């Protein structure tokens, strides 16, 4: 074990970590913005309309993120019309290619998650909303979406973690993210064990940070699912929901 090599290269790791954080946060924001309309359209009762978002979701969930990223990074260069267009400014940069791939990918997963949560809205609650004269849009905005978002929160936490993990792929296409930094350290000093172990450690820290953030978010948003914390409550309190099944996702 050569700890000194790692200590010497801490600044490089920090820089890489910053790129990783940027990539993850930006792709999550873009992905979420895309996911809400995607989920809304995918729950449409009209089959022909629901088909398109579902096909999108199916493709992005059915293929590896690595392949998606390669298609966007290496693949776009195959088309001369694209290289001659203004869009090339974007596709020219590995950074933007990675960001686009990640955002499209997480949009598919998040969209599916929301779609599922919307489908699970207790039927009685929707019916109560109808019975009180709410219009379709009011029902969606006031009852279905808020309730679905809360239910999707734990699985979204997993999605964020997987996005963090998936972002390591950026290191494969010249981007110096956390994994890219580790590769440079390894290349310079031939210490694969130490350099990747350090990267793993930093990723673990970021993961734990995300878990912690989501735990706080759940404390806030899931008050209605937990037993009341106050003393001396009488019976009738709801049993604590079991932890959500761990939903994994691919790269």
């Amino acid at each position, binding site marked *: 074990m050569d700890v000194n090599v790692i200590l010497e290269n801490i600044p490089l790791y920090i820089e890489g970590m910053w790129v990783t954080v940027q990539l993850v946060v930006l792709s999550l924001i873009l992905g979420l913005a895309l996911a809400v309309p995607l989920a809304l359209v995918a729950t449409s009762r009209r089959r022909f309309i629901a088909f398109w978002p579902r096909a999108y979701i199916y493709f992005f969930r059915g293929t590896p993120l690595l392949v998606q990223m390669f298609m966007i990074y290496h693949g776009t260069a195959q088309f001369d019309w694209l290289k001659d267009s203004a869009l090339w400014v974007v596709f020219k940069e590995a950074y933007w290619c990675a960001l686009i791939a990640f955002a499209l990918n997480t949009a598919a997963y998040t969209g599916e998650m929301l779609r599922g949560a919307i489908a699970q809205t207790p039927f009685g609650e929707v019916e109560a909303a109808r019975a009180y004269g709410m*219009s379709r849009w009011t029902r969606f905005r006031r009852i279905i979406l808020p309730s679905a978002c809360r239910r999707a929160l734990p699985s979204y936490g997993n999605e964020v973690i997987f996005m963090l993990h998936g972002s390591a792929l950026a290191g494969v296409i010249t981007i110096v993210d956390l994994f890219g930094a580790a590769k440079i350290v390894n290349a310079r000093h031939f210490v694969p064990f130490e350099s990747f172990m350090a990267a793993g450690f930093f990723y673990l820290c970021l993961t734990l940070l995300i878990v912690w953030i989501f735990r706080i978010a759940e404390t806030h948003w899931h008050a209605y699912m937990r037993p009341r914390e106050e003393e001396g409550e009488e019976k009738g309190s709801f049993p604590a929901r079991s932890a959500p099944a761990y939903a994994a996702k691919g790269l």
Partner: protein
Amino acid sequence: MSASAEALVVEDLHKSFGSVEVLKGISLVAREHDVVSILGSSGSGKSTLLRCINLLEIPDAGNVYVHGELIRMTTTSGAARVPEDKRQVERMRSRLAMVFQQFNLWSHMTVLQNVIEAPMHVLKVPRAEAVERAESVLQRVDMYERKDYYPAHLSGGQQQRAAIARALAMEPAMMLFDEPTSALDPELVGEVLKVIRGLAEEGRTMLVVTHEMAFARDVSTKVMFLHEGQVEEDGVPAQVFDEPKSARFRQFLAGTLR
């Protein structure tokens, strides 16, 4: 009693699910201040009737008038029957407040939020006024202290009272109760029936699906017994309970064990 106006008129309502005809022509008149108890064994179509009245299910045939206004229906190209005017339906629903057997409180909102939700977003009552109104109805059903609880943290009886408060806050012309006590234990049943009895004494128009004979007999102004999708017996409670005409209804009364 002066002949009060007709709050709700149902004419020859039919409803089938697939090949099973669940309602086979139900007619019903409820005047203002009427409390109509709807009895019937399981599967006789009681819930379906209530749900057809406020169009949670679309009836296959028949008319519903609310305060004399016909809820207009039309037929789509696909031969499905649909309301002609969605706005009219939404307006009508905001006047017929339904209280569900399973409460159906919105689980991600506190009791107070549940109660102000529909007044604010359907009736467009300003928030401050909605809260004021909500607090007063919550006091009426003795739930004021629990207003910041989530539904999951309430007992069945408390949930049912919150659901009643939610309905009351709409200041509805009429209330529809679907077996408001059947999910409750005997002590809670008493508690909830007391609240409904109070509403009846105020002269609210109500349709109540119930299995509680004592309640039907003591509180309602009209009783209606459904059997296999038809009105088998109806009339004022004294007459219906003491001189039942229908054999099936006599059997039903005997079968209720006590």
